[in-house]
């Protein structure tokens, strides 16, 4: 008992103050890309050619954050003259097209489905479905329940049954062998229901794009309301997405 108390004392209070204050993230973190529209076209083309995810449109000078895994190859190749990744982790969007970005993003709170805020703003129950996920997206969703993030303080919880859920949170490139289970879970959620796509795999197939064993993106199967990009999205990216979209 004494040792329980001693440890409790040592651990102290650990919950972050987000969204009031943004916690510091280590400088090598790669968040929202900054794009220099005046970059040398040959450099832009070199970045597009080297991108393993084919996420760069050299003509438009945009990056598709739904395909991007934030590996930073383009930043290196262009020596930051075309792309540099910022420490901004607030990168979720309500539309797939907004993920194709020149570095600017619309305010997530002003999405088209404002009625969700009234319905779910005070209580939001989530059912997570991993459909081919590599366990990184899953882990960084799970971590939201730990004391540092403490998701429950916002009235948001992960629940065991889809019957108790308002939304499904999908991770992974939707493997063929999980498609039916995913659809059945979706059907089991009472209406109105929300679909949240977490991670580049879910949005576009991620590193597995082109495989006949995965879907080319969750949108080809279900209507998606919220897109949270990353490989995996930082827990704060997930938290921002949920709070800004529903609160």
């Amino acid at each position, binding site marked *: 008992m004494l*040792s*329980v108390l001693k*440890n*409790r004392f040592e651990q102290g209070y*650990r919950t972050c103050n987000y969204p009031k204050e943004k916690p510091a*993230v*280590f400088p*090598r*973190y*790669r968040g929202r890309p900054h794009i220099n529209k005046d970059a040398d076209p040959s450099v832009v083309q070199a970045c597009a050619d*080297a991108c*393993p*995810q084919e996420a760069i449109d050299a003509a438009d000078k945009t990056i598709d954050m739904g395909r991007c*895994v*934030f*590996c*930073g*190859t383009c930043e*290196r*190749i262009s020596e930051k003259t075309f792309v540099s990744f910022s420490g901004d982790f607030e990168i979720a969007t309500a539309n797939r097209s907004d993920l194709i970005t020149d570095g600017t993003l619309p305010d997530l709170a002003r999405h088209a489905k404002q009625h969700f805020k009234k319905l779910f703003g005070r209580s939001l129950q989530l059912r997570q*479905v*991993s*459909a*081919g*996920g*590599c*366990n*990184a*997206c*899953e*882990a960084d969703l*799970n*971590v939201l*329940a*730990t*004391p*540092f993030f403490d998701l429950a303080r916002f009235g948001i919880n*992960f629940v*065991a049954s*889809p019957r108790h859920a308002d939304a499904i949170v999908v991770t*992974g*490139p939707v*493997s*063929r*062998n*999980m498609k*039916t*289970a995913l659809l059945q879970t979706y059907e089991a959620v009472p209406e109105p229901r929300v679909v949240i796509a977490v991670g580049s*795999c879910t949005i576009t197939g*991620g*590193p*597995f794009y*082109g*495989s*006949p*064993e*995965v879907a080319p993106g969750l949108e080809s199967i279900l209507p998606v309301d919220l897109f949270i990009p990353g*490989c*995996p999205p930082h*827990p704060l990216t997930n938290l921002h997405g949920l709070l800004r979209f529903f609160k």
Partner: protein
Amino acid sequence: MTLFLPISNGGRIPRAEVPHLPFDSFREEALDIVKNGGKVVQFFAYEDQGELKFLTVLRTDRLLAAGCDAPDTWPSLTCECEPFHLFEREMAEQFGIRPEGHPWLKMVRYHENFRGAADPFGNDYTKDIPGNYDYYQVAGDDIHEVAVGPVHAGVIEPGHFRFNCIGERVLHLEIQLGYQHRGVETLLKNVTPKRLPLLTENIAGDTTIGHGLCMAQAVEALAGLSVDDGAKIIRTIALELERLANHIGDLGALCMDVAFLPPANYFGRIRGDFLNLSLLLSGNRFGKGLLRPGGVRFDLNDEVRKTLNDRIVELKPQVEHVLDLIFSASTVRARFEGCGRVSRDDAGHLGLVGPAGRASGLSYDVRRWFPTEWYGYLKVPENPKPSGDVYARALVRRDEVLQSLEMIQSLIDRPVTTRVVEGRMPTLPPDSLSVTLNEAWRGEVSHALLTDDTGHILRYKVKDPSFHNWNGLAMALRDTGISDFPLNNKSFNLSYCGFDL
């Protein structure tokens, strides 16, 4: 004197030098090695100029390789020697060939075979998994069946678990995986080389470094790239950080499963602190983007090294205190001890690796036996435990947490310099083979890379430690209360996607 060729971990071998034996002597020799205590590292089929061939890598105190022509049907090796069991099933599924007399010829991941051959399982793959397969059933009064998954209650990956129980007692657990199958090996063979690092990093996200290292080392061996000492040290630190984050997370989750909530919450948070140290180093909490053929993409400059050191100094006593809290609690001991026992004998027959194997007395650790990167210079203690239960699996993890902390501290004592690489994929030499092994946090990860006569990838074979260990979990559940399933599951914490590929 064996007909098999001794090879080194991460060496380059011209394929012509790998003994190509008549099938009968291949079979006899492989059985002989494994029956005398050897283990299977790799055993797979591949197509070479229209011909189907087998290649195997076995381990005794060294690695031994040989191949042969693959017959359409062959007398199953599993009948005589259990460690071949899943490998033969995988071959049957991937190439539509049949090990005759295999005691449990069931599909592994549920997909069409790679060459359009007749399906040995009689499956119609437009139907849902598990297809044309009846689970094992137990009949009788008071017998009941519990089916769980693929979607589980928690935020975890999918898989199906079928329990045959009498009352609360589990007679048999059958685990059906494959829901996560993404076609990884086919992609690795066919995609443009620039996609290779990202694919291997994402085979299993919690083992990004383990799989990433196997890929990088295989490509380096084939292309003759040298890696400087600094990069080797950074890679070693990254692999140990991965081990720390996962072991600490699992020890916390084990406490959650026995309702000891304080350490569950402390370790939940501290696990995140270690993930953040991977982010400190590589910009990603799982180390994605750190490893590329030729070295690492991020250095360990003095500023990062100091922050890393400061954080470890701060976290180490917290970790030690929480470990004390867990392992001195009688309530924890009461639940962990004797629960889900896997005997040393069974562990050997199943070929368990990593902490699960060590908890059943098998001391094998790639870091000691076939060291890569900086492990040759480190003291990696042996961690075998005799009891094979949840307690033993937790103890192995505790010991490894403390050892990893010490290893990292010893490595960041002195300045580390490296020339960072961007890691453009080099061209590979023709007709070559490299096999790499690393001790990731779940155990032995191995990749085998074969090139054809033009230097293109002929076959890329991936083996996650979970491929060995899922049957260990099924064995642990025999005669165990079904309510202890979560506890046992967490003590192994195996990878679904690493298995499903």
